[in-house]
């Protein structure tokens, strides 16, 4: 028996395509975000609020990832932005080649911000680079304040944390301060926002930051 040394990254194929996506974004001056959360944390609602707030001030495009249906792309298209739906048919995360294929259906000409809404899942998407500038993780107050400790890889790999459903704090056993402290323990450089898609709280702050990043 003999040993053949390999030393190759398991995700090398994905990473190579992600790099091509990243170069494409750079050529078009597009700031690309990978929006991740567990199912039901409010990714699509936050996306809708964001599109509403940015309307007319920043050219945005959206890639929607879901296991089934194009319901989210329909919701997003109402805001008059180019939107493409990726249906993973059971796949629990988006991969770089799916983004590459979706990009064939979107013109990035004139686009400043691309928001990729990943499949609702706090585990698998953390491993897959899509070519984005950064991952934004959403944790909602109804999920409890220990999410960052249970899913450390995602919170470690993200650059921004949005604590959503902040209006529900009086009704749930979640302390946003504890949630934030837990997240910062995993990743001290996380930038955090607190938002509510019902009251609109925090949306202007989040959108102002987004606009600054996209127009940089």
């Amino acid at each position: 028996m003999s040993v053949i040394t390999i030393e190759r990254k398991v995700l090398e194929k994905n990473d190579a395509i992600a790099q091509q996506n990243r170069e494409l974004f750079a050529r078009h001056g597009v700031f690309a975000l990978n929006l991740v959360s567990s199912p039901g944390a409010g990714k699509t609602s936050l996306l809708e609020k964001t599109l509403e707030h940015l309307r007319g001030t920043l050219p945005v495009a959206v890639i929607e990832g879901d296991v089934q249906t194009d319901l989210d792309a329909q919701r997003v298209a109402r805001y008059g932005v180019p939107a493409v739906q990726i249906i993973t048919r059971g796949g629990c995360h988006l991969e770089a080649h799916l983004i590459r294929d979706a990009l064939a259906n979107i013109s990035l000409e004139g686009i400043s911000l691309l928001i990729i809404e990943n499949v609702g899942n706090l585990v698998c998407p953390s491993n897959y680079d899509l070519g984005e500038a950064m991952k934004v993780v959403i944790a909602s107050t109804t999920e409890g304040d220990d999410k960052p400790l249970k899913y450390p890889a995602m919170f470690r790999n993200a650059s921004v944390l949005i604590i959503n459903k902040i209006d529900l704090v009086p009704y749930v056993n979640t302390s946003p301060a504890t949630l934030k402290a837990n997240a910062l323990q995993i990743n001290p450089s996380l930038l955090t926002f607190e938002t509510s898609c019902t009251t609109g709280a925090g949306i202007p702050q989040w959108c102002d930051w987004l606009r600054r990043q996209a127009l940089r």
Partner: protein
Amino acid sequence: MHELSLAQSIAEIAQQAASANGDRKVMSVGIRVGELSGVIVDSLTFCFAAITAGTTLEGAALRVDRVPVRAQCRECRTLCGVDNLVFLCPSCGSGDLDIIAGRELQVTDIEVNDEPGEQT
């Protein structure tokens, strides 16, 4: 459950290495898995056995080298382990740690039969 697609990539990489080395029978595949890689090793092992069944890799074992999380403080340069996911420097208390190990997800090597005749 992304372990199935990871198992597929591992099998592909191992298969390519075996082909490049005279199509010898692969006895085992070595992988390095960091504690922060988000991989469930039991699922990965199960998926690897399932997708290699009926292929030239059938029966090849997956040898898993788990890598604990290690970090270096960007403030005082202390090297430390990261226990219980507390990303704080034990020396100066800074949270500004550079993760230097624990994110790995690599195929390190394959063990192959030396005799071409041993092919099954």
